[in-house]
């Protein structure tokens, strides 16, 4: 035999052992090769030596060799040919386990040359008398399709698979369904990605007919847990022909709620949520919804990860059917040792379930959480108190009391978050809880976060006529104006102007000072421009300044849904999938649909699914922040006017400065949305930002459009192009720092 490589080292020793005359030694060597392979060492050089050990009676050894082959077949295509004979021989072995093993492995080899030899054994495998071999062969068709679809079609494997849906063995049916679904997905995604080129007659490779439906429903009750999920997935794709069929499907699927596997339960929920659309009888709908609640609650005693997936999906379900778990709030109470991701999700759901009857219990829980250790969780709990106050009018006072108690703890982050939350409560119930203001103001020194500061300043400006020393308090911020962050600066500016309009006599000096500082010493164009506008407004027409700055603000409320209705429907049809966990359409994170900025902008299919989906994401994101967005327009028209103007102008005239902002940090909420997707950020954010920009333009009338126009030419590349408006939007939101 030829000598390869150096005559020493680990691989050389292995090679000697692999050729040893003793069986045990050879087997041991194979194990060592696999171990080396696992940790990432390159043992591909041993290919011929390992291959020699393939023909053996020892099943374990055979499996090990196969494992090795699967790993290196791609890199050594010529040598794989040597293995073909053994494989083909194995597919005729009397032992069904060996036959299945050979077919399974051949499908995983991914080497062009061996694939051509796969067709015949596969043909036999699909007709094998043993169900174990048949179920393996069924999946192998899907493997083959992903490598060489032509072969599958030429050999008529698809027709065979369709026939196998009627197989007597439920496992075979389940795997056939899984394989057909897989092929269907591959085919349709190819279809949509490459409009040109040879497309296999893939359109609707796996269309579920009523005949197939009845077979699936029968197999559903008999196959393994994983098989059930595959079948339920297929049922979810079926389009029911009329009400009767919808009823029938729902009734047959409901028992699956009692399955121990959370995957099966959620898959069943998905099927019900889809087919319930066709159910007309109100009593059936009622009973289906009722039966859905207990299993969902039970999922909360699963391991934390499954719990989390369940919670995210419950959150979605509640948006569609808020009554589903109405009386179950207590089970969502956080345990002290729950992982943070579970706790946060539970908080969200608790606020969703809050009503007059359970608000007492909820508040005492939230108060309890506010004294826990994890800062993030504490903040979210306090935020939840604010959301409860905004949601339930009758509970607002109790919420305010709880917040006051929390402020008295004097824990810095608690106080700051509480101040931010108080601002929302003032937005919702203007002039109701003014008695709280002195307490808030006394904590002025504790605040060091921009958001908290900006909130307090807004409150002071808003109630300037009720606070005796408002000018004094605002004076503190005016003194340190240039050191503050931009959101605080903007907020100070507005608050001082409000103060001036309310108490012109005592605050002339302050307003002069702040306008002076803002226009002369401030390096943010946004702040400067807003100051100029105020200045001009005040000097030219104080009456209209009053009308603009002190205009009534639109009321705020907690949005019932965080995703747009169309997207919600889509996600409910994908319960328990990643999309439903993220509350985002799959196009945003799954390979093919994750389109770059350019393709969306000048894509030929103007209204592609992906684009629409992305828009809905953006809308959803807005809805989520509705509360905050609204409060952004603190002084109604003024801000929008000022903001729109400033951002537009800034970008046009002072590009370097604008770039500065762009490179600076931003607490843009869109970042949150995107951050989870890691490196997809540029593509995503740019897509997402465009609809946001649109809504911005509509908000600002002509001004936003102006900004948009002004920006495009200055941007160097598409990503930058899109990110600048986004950044503007960020500024817009940061304006008052109310995030």
């Amino acid at each position: 035999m030829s000598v390869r490589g150096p005559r020493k080292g680990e691989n050389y020793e292995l090679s000697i052992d692999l050729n040893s005359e003793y069986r045990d030694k050879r087997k041991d060597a194979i194990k060592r090769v696999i171990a080396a392979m696992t940790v990432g060492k390159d043992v591909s050089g041993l290919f011929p030596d390992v291959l020699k050990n393939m023909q053996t009676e020892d099943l374990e050894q055979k499996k090990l060799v196969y494992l090795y082959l699967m790993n290196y077949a791609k890199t050594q295509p010529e040598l794989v040919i040597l293995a073909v004979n053994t494989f083909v021989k194995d597919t005729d072995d009397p032992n069904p386990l060996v036959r299945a093993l050979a077919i399974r492995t051949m499908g995983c080899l991914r080497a062009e040359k061996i694939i051509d030899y796969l067709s015949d054994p596969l043909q036999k495998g699909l007709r094998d008398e043993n169900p174990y071999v048949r179920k393996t062969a069924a999946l192998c068709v899907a493997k083959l399709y992903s490598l060489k679809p032509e072969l599958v079609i030429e050999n008529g494997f698809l027709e065979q698979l369709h026939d196998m849906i009627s197989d007597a063995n439920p496992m075979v049916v389940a795997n056939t369904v899984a394989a057909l679904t897989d092929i269907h997905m591959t085919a349709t995604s190819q279809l949509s990605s490459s409009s040109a080129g040879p497309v296999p007659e893939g359109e609707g490779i796996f269309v579920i007919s009523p005949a197939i439906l009845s077979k699936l429903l029968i197999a559903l009750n008999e196959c393994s847990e994983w098989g059930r999920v595959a079948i339920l997935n297929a049922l979810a794709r079926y389009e029911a022909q009329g009400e009767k069929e919808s009823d029938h499907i729902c009734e047959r699927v409901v028992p699956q709620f009692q399955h121990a596997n959370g995957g099966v339960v959620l898959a069943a929920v998905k099927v019900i949520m889809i087919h319930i659309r066709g159910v007309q009888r109100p009593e059936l709908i009622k009973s289906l919804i009722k039966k859905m609640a207990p299993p969902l609650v039970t999922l909360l005693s699963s391991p934390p990860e499954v719990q989390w997936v369940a919670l995210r999906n419950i959150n979605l379900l509640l948006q569609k059917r808020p009554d589903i778990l109405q009386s179950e709030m207590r089970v969502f109470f956080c345990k002290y040792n729950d992982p943070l991701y579970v706790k946060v999700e539970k908080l969200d759901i608790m606020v969703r379930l809050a009503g007059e009857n359970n608000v007492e219990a909820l508040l005492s829980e939230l108060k309890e959480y506010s004294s826990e250790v994890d800062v993030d969780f504490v903040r979210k709990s306090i935020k939840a108190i604010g959301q409860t106050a905004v949601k339930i009018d009758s509970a607002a006072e109790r919420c305010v009391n709880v917040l006051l108690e929390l402020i008295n703890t004097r824990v810095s982050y608690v106080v700051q978050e509480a101040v931010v939350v108080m601002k929302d409560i003032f937005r919702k119930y203007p002039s109701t809880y003014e008695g709280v203001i002195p307490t808030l103001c006394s904590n002025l020194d504790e605040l060091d976060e921009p958001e908290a500061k900006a909130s307090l300043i807004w409150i002071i400006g808003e109630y300037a006529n009720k606070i005796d020393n408002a000018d004094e308090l605002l004076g503190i911020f005016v003194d340190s104006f240039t050191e503050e962050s931009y959101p605080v600066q903007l907020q100070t500016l507005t608050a001082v102007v409000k103060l001036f309009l309310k108490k012109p006599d005592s605050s002339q000096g302050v307003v002069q000072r702040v306008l002076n500082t803002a226009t002369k010493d401030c390096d943010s164009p946004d702040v400067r421009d807003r100051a100029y506008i105020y200045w001009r407004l005040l000097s030219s027409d104080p009456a209209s300044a009053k009308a603009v700055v002190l205009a009534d603000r639109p009321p705020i409320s907690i949005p019932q849904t965080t995703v747009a209705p169309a997207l919600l429907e889509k996600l409910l049809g994908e319960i328990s999938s990643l999309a439903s966990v993220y509350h985002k359409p799959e196009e945003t994170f799954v390979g093919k649909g994750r389109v770059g900025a350019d393709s969306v902008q000048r894509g030929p299919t103007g209204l592609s699914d992906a684009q629409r989906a992305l828009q809905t994401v953006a809308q959803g994101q807005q809805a989520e922040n509705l509360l905050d967005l609204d409060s952004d327009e603190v002084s109604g028209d003024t801000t929008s006017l000022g903001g729109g103007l400033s951002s537009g102008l800034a970008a046009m005239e002072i590009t370097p400065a604008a770039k500065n902002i762009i490179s600076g940090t931003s607490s843009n909420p869109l970042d949150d949305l995107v951050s989870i997707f890691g490196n997809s950020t540029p593509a995503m954010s740019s897509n997402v930002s465009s609809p946001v920009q649109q809504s911005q333009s509509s908000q600002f009338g002509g001004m936003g459009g102006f900004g948009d126009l002004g920006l495009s030419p200055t941007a160097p590349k598409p990503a930058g192009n899109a990110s600048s408006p986004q950044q503007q939007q960020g500024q817009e939101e940061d304006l008052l720092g109310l995030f």
Partner: protein
Amino acid sequence: MISAFFIFNQKGEVLISRLFRTDFKRSIADVFRIQVVSNPDVRSPIITLGSTSFFHTRVNNLYVVAVTKSNANAALIFEFCYKFINIAKSYFGKVDEESVKNNFVVIYELIDEIVDFGYPQNSEIDTLKTYITTESVVSSAVAVEESSKITAQATGATSWRRGDVKYKKNEAFVDVIENVNLIMSAKGNVLRADVDGHIQMRAYLSGTPECKFGLNDKLVIDKSQGSGGDAVELDDCHFHQCVRLHEFDLTRTISFVPPDGEFELMRYRSTTNVKLPLRVLPTVTEIGTSQVSYAVTVKANFNSKLSATNVVLRIPTPLNTTNVECKVANGKAKYVPAENVIVWKIPRIQGGQECTLSANAELTSMTTRQVWARPPIDVDFQVLMFTSSGLIVRFLKVFEKSGYTSIKWVRYLTKASGTYQIRF
């Protein structure tokens, strides 16, 4: 579907790696190591980077990771990861770095068997054990017949049972095990009390026995209906795949052909009339800024013939505690500085009995006074022959062709570990 499956150790070294699809290279493992293992800020069990999603669970410092590029079924993937961990536990006793390293050959064999092309296949431990063993199997003429049986079982309608089981003595053991979840407020109000129960069965029955199982339950779908009698209200129950769900849905009978050996027959949940076996009455007062005094009483609220065993109370102390003096009449109490808790262990509390701990914690002065978060007191315990929900097994009938008689044993156990929390 799952595209790749990995096991990492705590340092992020790959112990097991298996790719099922063509869309990944092995180097995807490095991405996980960099982005998750060495990133302390990871707070979500699913991480999506670009279009690649990593699902990870942790067990004994190991990361069990499934990777996918599609819009996969998240619940299924996590259930699968836990299934794998269970299988590994039952094969190797425990799942840690050492056992994975020592058994990697079997693990690869198992993975190969339970997942194909990213789709989970048969994961019934009982069946797997018939043909994936720690000793090597030789494929010979004799084995062929055996294999046919195995494959029939692995794919059959009763994939969990082989047909040829024989026992001299036909026995079935039923364990009703209840886990009590309690959150009690500082004022002594029960905020949340419910029971997660499961019924564990060990069946040593010959042939293909048909079992019928009865409890004193009534499943409440509509909570507004009044309750009556001693029937226990179950909010929900879930069954092992051997139970005929359709029949349960129609007639509420639990009928099944049990797997051979041990399995979890059902899981249930009950929230009404939960009896709390232990009542804890804590009085904790902060004396100035330098001392905290504790007086904690535990009361056993059940029949005096029964007893709670292995009772462990974990009573939190402030972070700046220097020393704690404890006095107890029963058991042993010790301050554990590393965890900032007083651990009070009582080997046995008879029903009706009361135990008290009094302790005094000394604190160092801190420059910044921070409010003590007061985490809840956590109680672990076990009470034999007691169910918090009041559930009782009414009957277990076994029918088999050969008509043998079988002996049935029933045990009850109520316990809590980490879920029985009392705030103070």
